[in-house]
C-alpha cells in the first residue's frame, strides 16, 4: 500500500460537540480526493484536523506512513509539510506575489529560492504579475497565487478548502478542470472540500460524501452518482426524485411503471420500494401509451426539464430535447427505462 494520506476512525470535536465521528478515508499518492457534503457536515473541520489546526480526539491521521495526529499527539501545523489553499485565499496583503510564494521557502538559500519562485510563477502562468500586490489581482489570479504559494514548499499533500467558492460561477468549473490538470501533471496528492458536486465531479478521483459528521460513502464520481448507497446520497447528488412504489413478487411495479427484473433485486424487499428516478431514466417517446400530465417545466437551453405527475400524485423528472415544447397541464408521452434505477427498501 502506498497510501499517502490515511485517516483512521478520526473523531474531532468542535465546542464539545463531535463535528467528525469515526471518519476513515485514504488517498493514494497522486490521487485527488474530495470531501463533499452540505454546509455544517464537518468537512472543513476534518480538513483542518489534517492541517493540524484542530486536534483529533480519537483515531489517527498519518501522512506518508508517519502518524501526525493522534489523541495524544498533534504535530504543529508548521512541521507537517501540508500545503493549504484557503477559502478566502489568505494572501499576505503586505507582500507582493513573489514574496507571498516565497514565504514558505525562508530556509532555502536565496538563489534556489528565486529559482523555485520563478518556477511556481511559470506553473500558474503569473510570470508578469510577480511584483503586484494581492489587491491588484483578480479573484482567479489570487486563487492561482494561493495555489502556487501552497505548492512552493513541495508539500506531501495539498489541502483545498472550498477553493472556488469565492469566484464567479462561470469561472468555477473551468478553473476546477485547470487545477486538476495542473495537480495531475505534477503528481500532487490533494484533498479538496466543497459543497458543490459539479466542482467535486470536475476535480476528484475519489469522493467522500459526508453527512452530519459521518462519512456516508466513499466512491468514484460515477459510482456516487449512479450507485448511491443511501437515500441521503441519492438525494444530495444530482437531480432526481425518490418515489414510493408498490411491488409484487414478480417484480411488477405499481403506477404503471413497468417491471423490474426480479433477479437483480435484493431478496428481502417488502411490498413497497423506494426508487431513485433520475431525469434520464424517463425518456420522451411519442409512440408510448403512458401519458403523464406536466406539472412544471424548466428551460435549460439544450433541454427541457419536465416534472410529471404519476397516477397517485408523486412526481418524476424527465429530460427532453428543448424543441419538445408542450405547455403545462397537457400530457407528455414517456417510456420508463428502469435498467439503471436505484432501489432502496421501502419505509
Amino acid at each position, binding site marked *: 500500500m502506498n497510501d499517502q494520506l490515511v485517516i483512521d476512525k478520526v473523531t474531532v470535536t468542535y465546542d464539545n460537540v463531535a463535528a467528525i465521528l469515526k471518519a476513515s478515508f485514504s488517498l493514494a499518492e497522486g490521487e485527488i480526493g474530495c470531501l463533499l457534503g452540505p454546509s455544517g457536515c464537518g468537512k472543513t473541520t476534518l480538513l483542518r484536523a489534517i492541517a493540524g489546526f484542530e486536534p483529533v480526539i480519537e483515531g489517527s491521521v498519518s501522512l506518508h506512513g508517519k502518524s501526525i495526529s493522534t489523541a495524544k499527539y498533534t504535530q504543529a501545523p508548521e512541521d507537517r509539510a501540508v500545503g*493549504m489553499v*484557503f477559502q478566502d485565499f489568505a494572501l499576505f496583503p503586505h507582500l507582493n506575489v513573489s514574496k507571498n510564494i516565497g514565504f*514558505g521557502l525562508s530556509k532555502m538559500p536565496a538563489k534556489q529560492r528565486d529559482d523555485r519562485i520563478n518556477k511556481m510563477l511559470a506553473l500558474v502562468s503569473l510570470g508578469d504579475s510577480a511584483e503586484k500586490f494581492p489587491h491588484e489581482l483578480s479573484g482567479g489570479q489570487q486563487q492561482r497565487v*494561493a495555489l502556487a*504559494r501552497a505548492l512552493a514548499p513541495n508539500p506531501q499533500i495539498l489541502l483545498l478548502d472550498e477553493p472556488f467558492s469565492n469566484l464567479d460561477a462561470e469561472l468555477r468549473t473551468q478553473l476546477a478542470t485547470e487545477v486538476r490538470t495542473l495537480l495531475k501533471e505534477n503528481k500532487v496528492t490533494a484533498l479538496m472540500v466543497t459543497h458543490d458536486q459539479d466542482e467535486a465531479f470536475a476535480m476528484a478521483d475519489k469522493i467522500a460524501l459526508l453527512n452530519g459528521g459521518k462519512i456516508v460513502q466513499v466512491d468514484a464520481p460515477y459510482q456516487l452518482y449512479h450507485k448511491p448507497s443511501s437515500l441521503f446520497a441519492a438525494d444530495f447528488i444530482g437531480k432526481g426524485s425518490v418515489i414510493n412504489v408498490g411491488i409484487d413478487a414478480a417484480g411488477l411495479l405499481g403506477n404503471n411503471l413497468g417491471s423490474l427484473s426480479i433477479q437483480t433485486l435484493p431478496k428481502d424487499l417488502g411490498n413497497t420500494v423506494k426508487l431513485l428516478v433520475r431525469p434520464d431514466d424517463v425518456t420522451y417517446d411519442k409512440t408510448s401509451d403512458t401519458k403523464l400530465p406536466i406539472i412544471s417545466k424548466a428551460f435549460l437551453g439544450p433541454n427541457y426539464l419536465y416534472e410529471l405527475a404519476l397516477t397517485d400524485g408523486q412526481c418524476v423528472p424527465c429530460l427532453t430535447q428543448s424543441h419538445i415544447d408542450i405547455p403545462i397541464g397537457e400530457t407528455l408521452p414517456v417510456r420508463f427505462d428502469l435498467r439503471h434505477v436505484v432501489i432502496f427498501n421501502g419505509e
Partner: protein
Amino acid sequence: MAGVGFGTLLLGVSAAWLTAMCDFPGRKILSWAFLLPMAMPAYIIAYTYTGILDFAGPIQSILRGIFGWSYGDYYFPQIRSLGGAICMLSLVLYPYVYMLVRIAFLEQSTAVLEASRNLGKKPWETLFLVALPISRPAIVAGVSLALMETLADYGTVAYFGVSAFTTGIFRTWYGLGELTTAAQLCAFLLLFVFALIMAERWSRQRLRFHHNSANKKLVRMQLKGWHAYIALLIGCLIVGVGFVIPATQLLIWASSRWQENLNGAFLSLLFNSFSLAAIAAICCVIVATFLAYTKRVFNSRLELGAVGVASLGYAVPGTVIAVGVLIPVAWLDNKIDFFSRAWFDIPTGLLLSGTIGILVFAYVVRFLSVSLNTVESGLSAIKPSIDESARSLGARPAQVLKRVHLPILRSSLLTATLLVFVDVLKELPTTLILRPFNFNTLAVRTYELASDERLVDAALPALAIVVIGLLPVLLITKSILNERARHE
C-alpha cells in the same frame, strides 16, 4: 448643550450635503478643509475670538473708527456668554457630524434619491424627506460625539465664565475643597455621558442595517451659476470662521511677540508636552495592543466586557477622570504614608499623587479607546486564515507575529500613537488637575496666559497645539481621498 447639538447638526449636515451630494468648483478642496476646525481646541478658538471681538479688539475698534461711536453707544454681541460658548463649541465640533454624515450620504443608494425625484420631489424636499431620515443614525452618532466633547469641555466654559458641570466640579474641588460634592457632581455628569454613549452605540448598530453595500456610481447634483457661488460661499464661511480667521489671528499675535516668547521657557514647555504626550501615547498603544490581542485570542464574554469597559474612557470628561483617579490614589498615598510612619517612622508624604506617572495613567484611561479602535481595526484586517496559512507554510507562532502581523499592523500602530499623542497634547482639564507642581504643558500654559488676559503671549503655545492638531486631520484626509477613489 442643546445649542451645541443644534449648531453642530446644522453645520455638519450642510457641509456633508454640499460635499457629498453636490458638485461645484472648489468642492474637493472644501471636502477636506471642512475638517480643519478639528485641529482647533475649543478653548483656543474661544480666547482668539475674544481677542478679535472684544471692546479693544480690531472689529470694534474699526467700527468705532468708522462711525465715531464711543463705549455704550452701540450694541455689540457679548462673546463671553453662553451664546458665545455655544458658537465656539459648534464651530470646532461640527466635523464629527460632518465626517459620519458625509460617509452616510456617500454610501446611501442614489437610486432611492432618484426615485424620490422621479416621484416629483424637488431636490430640497428629497433632502428632508429621504436623505436625512436615512442618515439619521449617522447624524445621531455624530451629534452624540460632539455632545460628549461638549460635556468634557472645560477651557471654553471656564474662560467665558459660563457655569457648566466641569467648571462646577473644578470650583467645588479647588475653591470649596469639597471632595464629596465634586465626586457627586462627577457622578451626575457621568449619567449624562452614559445616556450619550447609549445613543451613540444604538445608532451605530442601526448604521449597520442601513449600510448599503451595493456598488453604485454616485451622481452629484451639478450646481451652476449663483447656486455654485452660494455653495462655495457657505463652505468658505464655515471653514473661514472655524479655522482660517482664528488661525491667522494666532499667527499675527505669535509673530508680534516672536522674539520675547521663543525662549528657553517655551522650549522646555515644548519638551514637557512632547515627552509627556509621547509616553502616554506609547503606553496607550501598548495597552491597546495587549487588549486587542486578548480579545482576538480569547473572545469570551469576560474579555469582551473588559475591553468594552476599557474603551469607555473617551466618553468620560477629563475632569471626571482626574477626580476619579485622584481620590483612590490619594487614599493609597495616605495608607502608604501611615504604614511607613508606623513601621519605619519614615513619612513618605504623597508618593503617587502629583507625579507624571499618575498623569500618564489618567491619559491612558481617557484615550485608550482611541488607540484601541485603531489597533483593532488594523488587527481585524488580519483574518484567522492568514495566521493559519503562515503556519501551514512552516512559520512558528513567533515568526507569524514578526513576519506577518507586525508589518501589516505597523501603520495602524503608528496612527494610534499619533492620534493619542495629539489628543494628550490638547487635553486641558486632566492635566490642569493632575500635573505635578510647576509642571507646565502647552495646553496648560495657553490656558493660564489666556486667563490672565495675556492673549498675545498665549498665541505661540496655542499655535503650536493647532499645528500639531493638524496631523490627524491630514491622516483623515488621506483616508477620505482613498475613499473617494472607491466612490468615483
